[in-house]
């Protein structure tokens, strides 16, 4: 090893050693005692994965494991707290829940006293059994065992707060502290959930005891982003369930929607359909509904925000099919998790194309946008230009589609999945890989 090589080796190891095991940022200047609970989980294929990054909650004064409202908070990374927490328990037992596998509990404050806790667990921990079906929002909620108050969620990209009134959980989230404060103001003044007091220098805290239940307006299905930009607001009856997104549908029919003369982004999570659109040349609005009663939702959004959302209409199927092949960007709407969740949002035209390629080459008709969204995402991410990867995916997909292995279709399937990726994500291919052609073109 040359002197330079040794210097590189030593320097890189030194630099890597300085990357903190857990990213501690100073977004909050000091540990906070935040009452409430937090959870940021979503389910995919039976394994819970993490949407958000950090959870803070307090056990209501009792020690861990003896009740109170200690709940789950999962993180992959980045506690947005100052200071270095102390590990107080590696296997916390909470009422109603068994200890989580490989869970670490961090505590700020004295053991046994009101404190702030952060629980971390492994990405691949299967928590489904602990939390119940992921699509059931209610089962993901704590059973209100005590003075459940507020929560604050902080991640590298966004913040959220949630509170409960009259048995309904509400969630708001935004991209920075001031945005969340603005959310609070907007929610509380505009939507009239009640009155709130912003406490001290932590603007995201709302004292829920000051909340007075608002009028019986059903707003739990509304998502709205400020025309001024910078933050988004969501009100849910529960958490937004899953993060796997796909095109919005009414029944089995994929729909597209035009708002202000432009195509809106539409997609569905596991439960509901969403529509998002641009307002005032930049910010984004969105509504969400289990039955896509968009008239009502837009009407509510406009009345709440005093902003005209413009002309809109639901496109016919023929119009949808004629739309361009470019998927509109989601934009900064708080849906980074959706954007990065491993699903490519195919347009109607793209879906038609990939289905045709697969059908022509493999002889199997698959038109489900969810399936193709995931397949295309994997093909582009795993690197389908690699022959092994292409064959691996082809084997998987043929088995999925036929319910059994069929080696005779693998060469065609390998070529098909390469072609599909090349058409959807050519920019992901390394230099020269597109020109090299599909695996069949490279085999002797």
């Amino acid at each position: 090893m040359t002197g330079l090589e040794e210097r590189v080796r030593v320097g890189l190891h030194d630099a890597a050693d300085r990357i903190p095991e857990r990213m501690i940022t100073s977004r909050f200047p000091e540990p906070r005692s935040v009452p409430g609970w937090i959870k940021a989980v979503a389910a995919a294929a039976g394994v819970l994965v993490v949407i958000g990054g950090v959870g803070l909650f307090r056990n209501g004064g009792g020690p861990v494991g003896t009740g109170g409202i200690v709940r789950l908070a999962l993180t992959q990374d980045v506690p947005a707290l100052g200071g270095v927490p102390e590990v107080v328990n590696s296997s916390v037992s909470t009422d109603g829940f068994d200890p989580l596998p490989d869970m670490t509990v961090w505590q700020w404050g004295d053991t046994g006293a009101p404190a702030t806790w952060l629980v971390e667990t492994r990405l691949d921990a299967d928590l489904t059994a602990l939390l119940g079906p992921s699509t059931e929002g209610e089962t993901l909620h704590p059973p209100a065992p005590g003075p459940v108050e507020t929560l604050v969620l902080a991640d590298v990209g966004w913040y959220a707060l949630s509170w409960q009134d009259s048995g309904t959980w509400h969630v708001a989230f935004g991209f920075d502290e001031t945005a969340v404060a603005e959310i609070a103001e907007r929610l509380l003044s505009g939507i009239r959930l009640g009155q709130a007091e912003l406490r001290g220098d932590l603007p995201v805290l709302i004292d829920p005891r000051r909340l007075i239940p608002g009028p019986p307006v059903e707003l739990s299905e509304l998502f709205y982003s400020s025309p001024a930009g910078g933050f988004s607001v969501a009100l849910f009856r529960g958490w937004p369930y899953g993060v796997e997104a796909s095109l919005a549908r009414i029944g089995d029919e994929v729909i597209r929607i035009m708002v202000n003369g432009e195509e809106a982004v539409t997609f569905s999570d596991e439960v509901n359909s969403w529509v998002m659109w641009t307002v005032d040349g930049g910010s984004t609005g969105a509504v969400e509904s289990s039955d896509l009663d968009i008239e009502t939702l837009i009407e509510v959004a406009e009345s709440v925000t005093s902003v005209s959302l413009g002309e809109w209409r639901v496109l016919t199927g023929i119009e949808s099919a004629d739309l361009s092949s470019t998927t509109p960007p989601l934009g900064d709407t708080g849906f980074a998790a959706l954007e990065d969740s491993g699903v490519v949002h195919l347009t109607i035209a793209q879906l038609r194309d990939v289905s045709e390629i697969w059908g022509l080459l493999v002889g199997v008709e698959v038109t489900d946008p969810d399936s193709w969204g995931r397949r295309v995402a994997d093909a582009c991410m795993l690197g389908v230009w690699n022959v092994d990867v292409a064959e691996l995916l082809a084997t998987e997909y043929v088995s999925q589609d036929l319910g059994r292995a069929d080696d005779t279709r693998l060469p065609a399937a390998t070529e098909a999945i390469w072609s599909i990726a090349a058409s959807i994500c050519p920019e992901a291919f390394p230099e020269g890989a597109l020109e090299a052609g599909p695996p069949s073109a490279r085999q002797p």
Partner: protein
Amino acid sequence: MIDDDRAAETTAGFTSFYSEWREPLRRAVALATGDVMTAGEAVDEAMTRALARWDRIGSYDTPAGWVYRVALNWSRGLFRKRKRELLTAIDADGARSDSLPDVDLIAAVERLSIRHRAVVIARFYVDWSTAEVAAALDVAEGTVKSRLSRALDQLARDLGGER
């Protein structure tokens, strides 16, 4: 029962792999992409996909190489989506105040293209052989050697001619 046993073996094999490699790969990806904040996410995304196919991925000579490559692909995709520049891996100010002994070297590594940087990180931080780096990054071993040579040339120039 046989399927259950096999699934248990698969899970155990992956768990061992995950425990051994998750953190080194996170640091490697952080160095290679320059984004400490998302490196863990990138590796976890790749790990998730490796787990789903562990019967096959686990049989590779260097499964960690596969995860490294996929994590880099994921990061590139994320950066493209966000239309953002690669961030600086090491906080230069923090590094200087924290008496990092070779700030010049780190700065020079950061100036490498991500393609060259990925090779340098894999070779000199993860300590893979050139053959292993080639397998990890899905390029020919000759390409790895070529990129290493060019990267070292650039580093030598940036650092004052030392090689």
